[in-house]
């Protein structure tokens, strides 16, 4: 099976989708001729023509707004917002329009669009290239929110998102584009070619939205996480010797609650881990659900580990990022808690 980086697998997902369905169109800032600042759409314009892959003006509201109109017509736009940090001008279109169109028109009009956005930090991008705004989407009725953690999932989930009848926010952890990242920023970068989930089928395959994956089975504690932090959690379990079960949610909405509750019922302890800021983050929702559904199995309080409630800093990136030291410390405290 071919090996791909996450950039290549995302590109492959769009390529396969455009090849199968001529209603799939791809556009965004720098997306056409050049192929995107992260190269995810490289070659698509050359292969499918300017009518199906093209450059857009620097107007996120315009990109999302036109995509909603195209979807109402019958196309399936898969659009790129260059960085998730830039999506705010489009937020009204996403929240008030894309998310509600099926509902408010009673299915007369629908909005099958995918909005791809590179998300998260770890690249010294500062406050405008590092944010993780997923909770701003999971709070909105009518949206689905996907965060892949590896090339295999990214392709299968993106194809499923493009084929989904409803709007999907597809957040791509940019630190994972070229290799898994376990938070040890001072160590050499590992490429995806050395990771089993860098093996990606060439052709069409879809992973269901709403199904989590267990990345590491364990019996002592459950770590519920997604995106970049999946790799940090796996590394910390390895390094501390704490037998943690690592759940990669893959999709935040719809959420695979069954996998979460089965795991916490088994382990009796739970950490919720994400890169986004703590307060009102998606982790708060996860912690509440674990408490509501697994209260009598819990042997320790549910613990959240997340980014600090500050703007994403530049020089202080590694003090901000919930890396192996913080995750490890929290994990030990959860195990000591009685």
């Amino acid at each position, binding site marked *: 099976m071919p090996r791909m980086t996450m950039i290549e697998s995302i590109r492959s997902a769009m390529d396969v989708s455009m090849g199968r369905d001529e209603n799939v*169109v791809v556009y965004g800032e720098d997306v056409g001729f050049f192929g995107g600042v992260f190269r995810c759409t490289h070659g698509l314009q050359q292969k499918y023509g300017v*009518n*199906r892959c093209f450059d*857009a*003006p620097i*107007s996120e*509201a*315009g990109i999302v*707004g*036109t*995509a*909603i*109109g*195209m979807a*109402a*017509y*019958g*196309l399936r736009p898969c659009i790129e917002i260059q960085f998730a940090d830039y999506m705010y*001008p489009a937020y*009204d*279109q996403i929240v*008030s*329009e894309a998310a*509600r*169109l*099926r*509902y*408010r*028109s*009673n*299915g*007369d*009009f*629908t909005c099958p669009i995918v909005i791809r956005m590179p998300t998260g930090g770890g690249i010294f991008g500062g406050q405008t290239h590092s944010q993780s705004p997923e909770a701003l989407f999971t709070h909105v*009725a*009518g949206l*689905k929110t996907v965060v892949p953690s590896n090339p295999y999932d990214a392709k299968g989930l993106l194809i499923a998102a493009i084929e989904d*009848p*409803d709007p999907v926010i597809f957040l791509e952890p940019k630190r994972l584009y070229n290799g898994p990242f376990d938070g040890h920023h001072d160590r050499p970068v590992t490429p995806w070619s050395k990771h089993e989930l860098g093996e990606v089928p060439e052709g069409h395959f879809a992973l269901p939205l*709403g199904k989590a994956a267990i990345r590491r089975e364990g019996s002592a504690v459950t770590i519920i996480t997604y995106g970049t932090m999946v790799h940090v959690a796996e590394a910390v379990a390895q390094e501390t010797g704490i037998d943690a079960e690592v759940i990669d949610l893959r999709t935040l*909405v*719809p*959420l695979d*609650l069954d996998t979460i509750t089965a795991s916490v019922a088994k382990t009796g302890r739970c950490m919720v881990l994400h890169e986004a800021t703590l307060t009102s983050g998606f982790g708060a929702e996860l912690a509440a659900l674990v408490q509501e559904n697994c209260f009598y199995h819990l042997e320790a309080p549910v613990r959240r580990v997340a980014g600090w409630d500050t703007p994403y800093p530049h020089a202080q990136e590694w003090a901000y990022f919930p890396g192996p030291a913080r995750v490890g410390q929290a994990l030990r405290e959860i195990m000591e808690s009685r």
Partner: protein
Amino acid sequence: MTDTPLRFHVPQPASRPGEQPDFSHVVIPKAGSVERPPVDVDPKDIRDLAYSIIRVLDREGQAVGPWVPDLSPDDLIRGLRHMMTLRSFDARMQMAQRQGKTSFYMQHTGEEAVSCAFRIALSDGDMNFPTYRQAGLLIAHEYPLVDMMCQIYSNGRDPLKGRQLPVMYSSKESGFFSISGNLTTQFVQAVGWAMASAIKGDTKIAAAWVGDGSTAESDFHAALVFASTYKAPVVLNVVNNQWAISTFQGIARGGSGTFAARGLGFGIPALRVDGNDYLAVYAAAQWAIERARRNLGPTLVEYVTYRAGAHSTSDDPSAYRPKQESDGWPLGDPLLRLKEHLIAIGAWSEERHTQTQAEILETVIAAQKEAESFGTLHSGGKPSARDMFEGVYAELPPHLRRQRQQLGV
């Protein structure tokens, strides 16, 4: 460097409550005086059209000048009936709201010609992205009045299952995109719809709608950029009814002179039209629609009209503009003007008008009775609470299933 203190400028309307209405700032050219360029004209050669007003009906009720459209007396009688139906519909629904049968209503008084005439210029399959004051697009497409009323009543037959505020209709079949209620969002969506039609090599075009006040939203700018860049087959309609709730149009317009002129910087040809002149609206719409269909790109059309009534049932205009301002509006009433024209050409009479008015009222009352037999907002049939959870997604996800179970429906 001078010592002159800087001055902050807040535009003010010409008159306020208690003062005499003053429309001296609305310069009205003579009917028939504005040229009609060919549709493939270079936009830079017709910049003056963004600052004038295309008018067809003169003070004697005659249709004059190069913009006289090819509409038969029967077409015009049909148009008059549409406008009369809309006005009658408005009156009944306004009253129904006052009677507590629904929560909210928005009338079209004075603006009926804009949506009624525009609809006639479109073809089946074209798509409007309307605001809340274009119900004429539905009425002129013979959409059932009963269905509109059921939506307003949020009753058991509401096509939108009680999910939307009254008047936020949706009908794909009638080329009427779901009304959001948020402003200007749909303007750029219309451009996207038009881009899709062009991408697919289709023949259908889109029409975007916005009010004078909402042109200030950044989505308006985005729409003009995308429409201009991709030469989208779309007609960009700005209905300038002078008032955005209590805010006069000068607050959104600023120093640009006219809303039509907003198109010029984008290379989009712009027309400014008498919005109370059914024939002029139709003629301008037809010109813009033909441009779109012939791959000549977008056109911006400003309809100069006047919101004779309140913004909505929640509004009282006497608090911010002279009570008799509407009487001073220099472009008159669209229904009366078309009626006078039809009488002037011998196709209509006072008797036929009175008779038609009675007929229409009867039709509207019958529709209202039928709609009310399916319930009103607070009595009779209504959509089930179970419906509330449907349609958020194509398939009910587990968390909504759990919430529906909690509510016990």
